[in-house]
């Protein structure tokens, strides 16, 4: 892995005009890539160069660039968010690549995430899953003192392990079946671990699973590829928790 010398990379980037148009790979050779650049900064630079030549820049989603907003959605060399584990594409740095390497960049691919343009996809399905039941139905103002609900450190920590989901959709992108089980499971598990989530637990799991189904995500086959690509490392146990909640809802 290079650390100091500038690199040259051969990029194969997916270009697609809209959801219904046919896409293709476009080749670009990028020289003068500084190894301390982030992956997105490398794309910024490519776009600068394209625009300096009057060409159309490549569209990709990004926002916070510190791995928390969940906007970025690049499949880099066949892996959502690229080769570094527990790292969103925006936190991936070029020092992880080698001089002369060919790098392919594709968008998330799933029926439930239609392509908007180039590498940008529509992830509204996640919002709808959340809206179906990913909440505690409390009203602003109708609460008790925060310390009136004791919650063991263990329960809070477990809940937090699932709550850290950034909603990027890498789990769907990586899943051979395009399942959204890790995302949905993480939401359900987060509430399942806390007393606040208890009153609505049955309704929540049924509604969210039903919505997941409606959106056209695939079934889960417990490949755990989702856990491997999750930039915050959410465990597949989230999916097991979802099923446990579901069993409770059966009776």
């Amino acid at each position, binding site marked *: 892995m290079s650390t100091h010398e500038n690199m040259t990379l051969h990029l194969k980037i997916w270009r697609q005009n809209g959801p219904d148009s046919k896409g293709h790979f476009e080749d670009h050779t990028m020289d003068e890539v500084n190894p301390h650049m982030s992956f997105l900064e490398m794309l910024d630079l490519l776009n600068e160069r394209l625009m300096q030549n009057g060409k159309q820049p490549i569209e990709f989603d990004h926002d916070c660039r510190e791995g928390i907003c969940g906007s970025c959605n690049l499949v880099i060399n*066949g892996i959502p968010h690229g080769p570094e584990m527990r790292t969103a594409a925006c936190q991936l740095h070029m020092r992880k690549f080698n001089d002369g390497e060919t790098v392919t960049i594709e968008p998330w691919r799933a029926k439930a995430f239609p392509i908007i343009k180039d590498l940008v996809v529509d992830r509204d399905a996640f919002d709808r899953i959340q809206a179906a039941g990913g909440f505690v139905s409390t009203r602003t103002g109708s609460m008790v003192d925060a310390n009136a609900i004791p919650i063991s450190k263990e329960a809070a920590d477990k809940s937090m392990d699932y709550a850290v989901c950034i909603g990027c959709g890498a789990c769907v992108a990586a899943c051979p*079946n395009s399942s959204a089980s890790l995302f949905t499971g993480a939401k359900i598990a987060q509430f399942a671990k806390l007393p606040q989530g208890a009153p609505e637990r049955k309704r929540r799991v049924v509604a969210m*699973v039903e919505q997941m189904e409606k959106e056209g995500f*695939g079934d889960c086959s417990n490949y755990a590829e989702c856990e*491997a*690509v999750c930039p915050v490392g959410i465990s*597949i*146990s989230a999916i097991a928790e979802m099923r446990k909640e579901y069993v409770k809802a*059966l009776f």
Partner: protein
Amino acid sequence: MSSLQLLQTSVGRKLLTGITGILLTLFLVAHLAGNLTLFAPDGGVAFNLYADFLHNLGPILIIFEIVLIVLFLLHAYIGISIYRGRKKARPENYTYYKSQGGPSKQDFASKTMIYTGLVILLFVVLHVLHFKYNFFIPHETTTLEGREMIDLAYHVEKAFLNPWITIAYSVVMVLIGLHLKHGVWSAFISLGAGNPKLTALLYTIGIIVAILLAAGFLIIPIYIFLNGGL
């Protein structure tokens, strides 16, 4: 939604796959235990008596067989439909796709579940025709404890002296092992084994169960073949 409808969602399907899978695995354990009586040093008497005991269970056996068939077909049906759903959920596939490794359980075993499953499906049909309905071999009987009964031990011995049957059978047992390697762990997760600290342990248990069952079923044909009989 009613409970019946709830079982038809993706999570419901997975629960059913897990339950049927575990029950079928338990059946394999029982089946293996029965098979291993072949190794009793009595020329197959214990094995034949065990088989005869099962055959004489009457309606209980029929119920048991029906349940087994339902479990098996349900398991296969859901497995096939999950596989068929893939294409629908991702109409345009990746040009480049790679596993991240690490905690990923994508390996030869998990990626070939559908194929190992289909082979097992075919095998089970042949296996039943072979040893239950004697479709491929002449009917031999023996008399034990004053009763005439099928000499199943002889059937088995005869089959596994044939190298082609032995090879084919052995290959299928390896495939069953592969199916179980992902299947057992997967069933745990499907049935809600949610403790993240346990997932590694569960995966190991799956591997052990797979190896023990596959090895147990393999010993018999290989032993008979190499030994030139029981």
